[in-house]
């Protein structure tokens, strides 16, 4: 156990002595979580900038009143070409075109932006109110036959407006900080564990590993110490980032603390085993860096750490959910959103994460045994001993 403990401590020494490692461990994920949390969490947003292109006097006036009354929205009256230019240049978030010859209010937004999307949703609400008011004015002013139940063919009652309720029957999709906080946590734990395989590459390159294995430390003890070191570093990262998400963005990480910790431990172990495998397989630090970057970014994107996986096509969702990143996101989302009620999803993810961890570990151990051949002289001397 003492030998394992020494190898375990050496893993931590790598982290503490390396400033980039420390940066990647805590600071970088916190920076990513903070900026993305602010952007997608809606904190500190400036008012939406709307351009109103006038048309019919009544509708334009009603739209202007409604836009002016809306909080967090600023509008200016512009010609159509001015408004389109403003939208293209990014000085406007949406353009509302009051109807002239047509009977529709048109809205132009930049679909690439969050603000464009927000503006569209808000203007939909304004449009409903304007539509009702316009209809009321039109009917009252002209006493159209439609106002007469007998001629319209529809009996309008004078009861209050019923409430419109849309029940979303599926489970809530995690968006905003609920997506960003676990997403960045999963991505950075995986990346850090993968890059930490560099320690093994260095030890092999400078001969430390040979010297170490010439001592009474066995390969198993070496790998166990390394693995436990990586898991402990990963858990420190997990606890720090989850704590940060809970304190700063009020993400409900503590709704089922036992299960959340278990998920964190299993994902961290799978990531650590992956880092171990990379360290065993890659021959140079450059090679490890290139492979780790490519694989980690692909796993992060496919597993739904950058965007909600529900937003991707069905086939990609099915594939993404098989990956360790997809499983970790599934469990974290279930526990954050539903607490203990998300246990079924979390437990299914545990099995998958355990399977991935075991696979990486078995591969790492097998390749560690077969991948490095001791010099014949050393083998002979050990046999003689």
């Amino acid at each position, binding site marked *: 156990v003492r030998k394992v403990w020494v190898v375990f401590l050496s893993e931590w020494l790598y982290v503490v002595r390396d400033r980039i490692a420390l940066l990647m461990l805590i600071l970088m994920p916190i920076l990513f979580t903070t900026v993305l949390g602010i952007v997608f969490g809606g904190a500190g947003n400036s008012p939406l900038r709307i351009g109103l292109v006038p048309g019919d006097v*009544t509708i334009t006036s009603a739209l202007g009143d409604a836009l002016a009354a809306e909080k967090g929205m600023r509008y200016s009256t512009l010609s159509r070409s001015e408004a389109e230019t403003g939208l293209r240049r990014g000085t406007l978030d949406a353009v509302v075109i009051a109807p002239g010859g047509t009977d529709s209010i048109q809205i132009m937004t930049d679909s690439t932006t969050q603000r464009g999307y927000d503006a569209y949703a808000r203007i939909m609400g304004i449009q409903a109110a304007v539509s009702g008011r316009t209809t009321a004015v039109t009917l009252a002013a002209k006493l159209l036959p439609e106002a007469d139940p007998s001629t319209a063919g529809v009996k309008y009652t004078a009861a209050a407006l019923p409430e419109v309720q849309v029940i979303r029957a599926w489970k809530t999709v995690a968006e905003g900080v609920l997506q960003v906080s676990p997403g960045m946590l999963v991505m950075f734990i995986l990346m850090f564990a993968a890059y930490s395989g560099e320690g093994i590459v260095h030890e092999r390159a400078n001969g430390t590993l040979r010297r170490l294995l010439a001592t009474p430390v066995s390969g198993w003890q070496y790998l166990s110490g390394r693995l436990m070191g990586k898991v402990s570093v990963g858990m420190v990262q997990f606890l720090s980032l989850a704590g940060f998400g809970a304190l700063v963005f009020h993400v409900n990480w503590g709704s089922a603390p036992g299960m959340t910790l278990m998920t964190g431990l299993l994902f961290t172990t799978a990531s650590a085993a992956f880092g171990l495998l990379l360290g065993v397989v890659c021959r140079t630090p450059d090679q490890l860096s290139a492979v780790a970057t490519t694989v980690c970014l692909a796993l992060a994107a496919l597993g739904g750490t950058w965007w909600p996986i529900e937003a991707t096509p069905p086939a990609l969702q099915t594939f993404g959910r098989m990956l360790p990143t997809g499983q970790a996101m599934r469990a974290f989302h279930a526990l954050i959103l539903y607490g203990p009620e998300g246990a079924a999803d979390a437990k299914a993810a545990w099995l998958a994460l355990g399977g991935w961890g075991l696979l990486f570990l078995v591969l790492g151990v097998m390749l560690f045994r077969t991948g490095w051949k001791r010099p014949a002289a050393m083998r002979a001397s050990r046999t003689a001993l």
Partner: protein
Amino acid sequence: LIQVLRLIEAELISRMRDKSFWLEALLLPVVVTAIMGIALGRVGHGKTPTVQVGIVADSRDLLTVQVLEAAFKAAGSLNTDFYTGTDEARAQLKNRKLDALVFVPDGDPATDAKATVKVSVESGKTTQFQAAMVAQITEAALRTMMAEIGARRSVADLMAENQADPSATWTTPAPTPVSAKLEQVSLKQFDALGAQFAGLAIFFSLLSAFRLMVNIFGDHRHGLNLRLAGIPAHPAYVAAGFIGTVALVAAVQTLTVLVVGRLAFGVHWGAPVPLILAALLASVASAAVALALAVLPLSSSARGLIGTLFVLGGSVLGGSLVPFDGASPTLQLFARATLHYWVTGLFTGLSRGLTVTEVARLFVGVAAYGSGALILAATFLARRRPGRA
């Protein structure tokens, strides 16, 4: 110039022998661009997939059903099927023939004041986002419907209160008989993937440029740099050779992302000449920034720390990984301090069909950023001890 070109050739040959270079320089951008393109829902030349909606109700004559069918049709990318049986509809949802189900209760709110408009939307296992879109359109359409019904009821109330004769002439001046409907139109050039790929292009090119430059100036290659310093060439030529090599790799990466975006996902990048100019300018600026970071007069560990923070932190702060316009003005002000902000804005502007004059500010921004980095790098290099390139 020949010396510079020979140096570029030698550096490139040395890099290309390493398989990990190919993995990082070409495969990584292609893989991530492809994943992003497919994940954001567009496979093959910008076609938006159609969402299949099933409406479940007792009768197709219900006003709510008619309003919803019209709203889904108007949305453009939604097809509707009508079902009277819940089991049959759910089976279709399970078999992925449908993306979402809309359950409309019996009763007509237009004729029955007690009728509840309580519509539920159900998604399949992997179609939550499509169902969310259906729910949003449903909600908007029903709110509009109820606003109109409410208006008519108000008029009916008003007339009842005033004991007005429906056939009498109303004295208020009549407005244009317009019922306001909402219609979304998009400018042709707008493209969500354009902005995402623009960000990816600078993210990868700056990341690779920094790594490559750190390798070139890395401690393990000091012997080579010393030998380079010993040849009869001005140090500026050597530096130009390094920048040329790194800029060339960055340009290849940038163009890879842009070409994959165009060919695989139909992203429109505007006229080719401004685009190529922008790609070259961004690549040289990336190389200059990478050089400045690689020769910072600090320890190699501190240089790595600041460089990594600048490259990765800049990508998120500069809005190259996510659309950044939702951020506060203060955050956007900070974003201007990153190269990512200027280059992402430049490519996004070109993809939106802006003219060279309209994006001139961004061209100047990228050029100024690159020049500033170059001056900084030259200052750092001049302060180094003689004999160290």
